[in-house]
Structure formats: C-alpha cells, structure tokens
C-alpha cells in the first residue's frame, strides 16, 4: 500500500458529490436502467432498491480497493464480479428475512444487482485505482445519487399512479389513478421528464453547437 498513486488527490467534498450531482448514475450517466425502470412503481420500492444497491456498491468498492494491488490485471473483472455477487447474495437473504412482501415486489432485480453497470463501473473506474476510504466515500455518493434517482421516479409514479406517497393517501379516495404510470411506458415518460429537468438545472444546452433554424 505504500506505492505512490497518482490518482490519489485526497478526499474532497466532490469525491462524495460526484455521484449525487455531477455524475449522477440515473440522471447524468443513465446507468443501471433495468432496476430504474422496473422497480420504481412506488417510492418505497425505489428507496429499498437504492439502499440495497448502495450497500453492495460500498462494500464491493471497499473490498476491491483493499485488494487492488493483489489482483492480476487479466482477471480483475472476474474478481470484481465474484466480490459483487457475494454481497448481492448477502443482501438477497437479508431482504428476504426482513420483509417477504418487499422481496417479492423487487423480484429478480435484487439478484440482478450483480450485473448493475454502476457497481462494476465504479469498481473498475474508481475503486481499483484509489485507496479504501476514498473509494468508500465515492461509492457512497454514487449510491446516494442512485437512491435519489430511484426515489424521484418512484415518487412521481406512485403519486400519479396511485395517489399515494409511501403508501399514504394524498388526494382522498376519489383520486383518479393514472394507470399508465404504473405500467412500463410510465417509467419511460417519468425518466424522460426527469432527464429534461436535470438538463435544465445543470444549465447544459440540449444540443451542442446551437440550434438549427428553419
């Protein structure tokens, strides 16, 4: 661990905020779209999925960072997958023991955290090149950003699709549910809307090089 690392610039606030804002996995990198689309029919599902992913992300990045000098370059991806799969199995059993209803709602998408590109992407791009603490802070930021993204989608879809938030009725029992919001197309509509809003907030022009008139 005494080898000098040129990527080692110390932990700044941006190490954490990178995943929350500048490189948000859902709104900027648009990674891990399977769980984003599939489980966000309600806010609680979205947040649970986000927390599960965050746990796997942080633990995997910690371990990957600790063994980053021991793993031969040629087998690193396979090693990462084994590490990630181990933590996913932990989460899988944990959620099953904690709440069977939630386990059934999230379905195969808990196991599919293994192939979530955010985790492998962080392990490869960040944790394997940085010391453990920095890797953990960065992974935590990414996890928080992902959870915020899932909550943003799940919240809107639950409010419009069921008139509730976290299972609490918001508009009385006469609320007309927007059926499309709990269907797959609703996920695409809401994600598109959030991407548009995020692009506006970040002040980035929608098209590079200006508009074409005419």
């Amino acid at each position, binding site marked *: 661990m005494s080898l000098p690392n040129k990527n080692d610039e110390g932990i700044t606030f941006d190490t954490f905020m990178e995943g929350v804002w500048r490189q948000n996995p859902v709104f900027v990198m648009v990674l891990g779209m399977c769980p984003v689309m599939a489980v966000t029919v309600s806010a609680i599902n979205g947040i649970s999925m986000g927390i599960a992913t965050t746990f796997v992300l942080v633990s995997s990045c910690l371990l990957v960072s600790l063994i980053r000098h021991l793993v031969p370059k040629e087998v690193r991806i396979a090693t990462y997958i084994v590490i990630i799969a181990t933590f996913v199995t932990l989460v899988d059993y944990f959620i099953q023991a904690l709440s069977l209803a939630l386990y059934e709602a999230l379905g195969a998408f808990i196991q599919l955290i293994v192939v979530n590109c955010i985790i492998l992407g962080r392990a490869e791009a960040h944790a394997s090149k940085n010391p453990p603490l920095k890797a953990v802070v960065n992974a935590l930021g990414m996890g928080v950003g992902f959870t915020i993204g899932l909550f943003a989608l799940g919240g809107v879809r639950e409010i419009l699709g069921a*008139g509730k938030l976290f299972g609490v009725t918001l508009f009385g029992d006469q609320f*007309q549910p927007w059926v499309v919001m709990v269907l797959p197309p609703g996920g695409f509509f809401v994600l598109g809307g959030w991407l*548009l809003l995020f692009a506006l907030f970040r002040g980035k022009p929608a098209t590079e090089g200006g508009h074409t008139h005419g």
Partner: protein
Amino acid sequence: MSMELRTSPHLVSDRSVERIMKHVVLSLLPVCAFSVWQYGLSALALLLAVTATCLATERLFNRAADQPSTLGDWSATITGVLLALTLPPAFPLWMGAVAGFVAIAIGKVLFGGLGCNVFNPALIGRAFVQASFPAAITTWVPAFSAQRFTEFAPTTFTVPLMIPPDVADWVKQQAVDAFTGATPLARWKFENVTASAWDFLSGAVTASAGETSAILILAGGIYLAARKFMDWRITVAVLGSAALTAWLFQMVDPSHYPSPTFVLLSGGLMLGAVFMATDMATSPVTPLGVWIYGAVIGVVTVMIRYFGGLTEGVMYAILFANAMAPLIDKYTQPRVFGARQQGKKQ
C-alpha cells in the same frame, strides 16, 4: 434593412404551411359544428378546453426555448381540434387538458416542433389518456338528448385529479331511447350486433364527437383534396384496404364478420383516414410509399378490431404506420432519371 437570401428555384407558391393548415381547420369546422349540435354544451366545452390547452402548451414551450411564437401556423389548433374530436363528448375537461398537454409537449415540441414530429401529436395525446384513464375514455353519453344545450354532462366538470362521477343516473333522466352506453364497435365485438349505415350517417350512434359524421368528414376531405392541400391517395388507400380486408373476412364467415360498410363507417376510421393519416410530417412522400402506408393503416385497423383486445384500432394503426413511414420512404425511392440502378449492370 434585412435582406432575404434564398437558393433557387425562385418560384413562389401560394401553398404555405399556414395556408394549408388554415384550410384544414376550416374543413374541420363542419365536423365540430355537427358534434356540438349532437352532444351540446359538453362537446363544445371539450373542444375549447383541449384546443386551448394545446395552444397554451405550444406557447409555453416557445417561450421556454426563446423561439418566436408558432401559434400562427395553425398546426397546434388542428391538433387540439382533432384530439377533442377523438375523445368521448362527456370526457372530463381536466383529462382533456392532460391529453392536450401530452399531445403538444411529448408528441410534437420535444421532437423539435412542426415537421419534426415522428407521430401524429393528437394520437399521442389520445393514446396517453387511453392508457391512463381507461374507464373515462369508454364512458359514453347519448346523442341528441333533450337538455343538451342547457346542461353539461356530470362528468365534464370533474374536479381535476378526481374520478369522474357515474353517469348512469344522469343518462336515465335524459329520456333517450335505446341507449346502450356502448359504441357500435363494442356492441359488434361483445354482442354481435351491427348498426346500420343509416344509424351512422344520421349520428344516432354512441361514439366520440368526431366519429359520427362520416359525410361531413368526407366532404372536408374532398375539399382539401380538390385544393391539393391533402394527399387523397392515402385516404383512398386506408379506406380501400380496410374495406377489402373486411370484405375478404365477410366472404369467409358472413355470420361473424360485419360488412365493409360497417367497418368503414364505424369508429374513427373516417376521421383517421381523412385528417390524421394524411398528416404531412408523419406520412411517406414517395408515390408508391403513400399507397403502402395507407394500406398498412387499413389492414392493421381491421386486424386490431377483429382480433385485438380493443374495440377500435385506428389510433394504433396510424401510430404504427407513422413509425414505419421513414422505412417506407427509404425502400420506395423512385429511380432518378438517367441514373443506374444499384446492383444492376447497364
């Protein structure tokens, strides 16, 4: 002083987008008038609300993009009017507003505005509310009820975001004979009862505002085609292929499948064939392409009606064909005069 520079040809035609669109609006007015006469205040309120939402949405996005107003090209007006005509006359106004917003915002502006849209905006709006509010969009009220010019249907002014009230009691008070609350297509599909051509032509059927005036729609279409504001081949291809498909099915099993006349007059086929399939931005431009495009719409419509879960298929048929339009254009490019065909020796 500003100078306008243009490349040749320097021919000036009087067929501008604004002019064509204005004439389309004009030819839709009789259809609107008939639906208001038929359904009264509710239909009028829906028409105004949906069109106003479409115009407001377009203006809002113009402003957000710092672009000059595009309301003057009349296309948002057409989208609004067409959308309102495809909705049930007693559709809650707030749902109509949702449809109008989605039609312009998602169906048109996000693609880059007029001419850049891939799908017919009005049908995008309708598809969205059909998927969102399946109950409200199949709630029908009787035509020619006695109090139609003095009171609104109870569903029209539903509080936004709330479930529209039940119309069954209100319909009973209207003293209309033989009102079943189902469209002719639904009655055919679930009860095997077909309506006669006269029922359709006189407007004595349950339907969306714009589905009951085949003659007025056709008259509007003929006017537009005669002024060369519309490609008549698309309309002919849609109606012809639908009639031909229906005729083939009737040949096979007359007891189960309805006559081509029923297929042509029922549902939104007439409105779709004349005013929606012919949308210039979303239909092919090649001479062969327009025939293929129209035929796809006609056949898919009949297939959805006969074998699909829905009673009406015009909307999805047109959206499907819209998606195919660029492909159709690509494979039906006419050979350039004097050019060698690809892959062929001279």
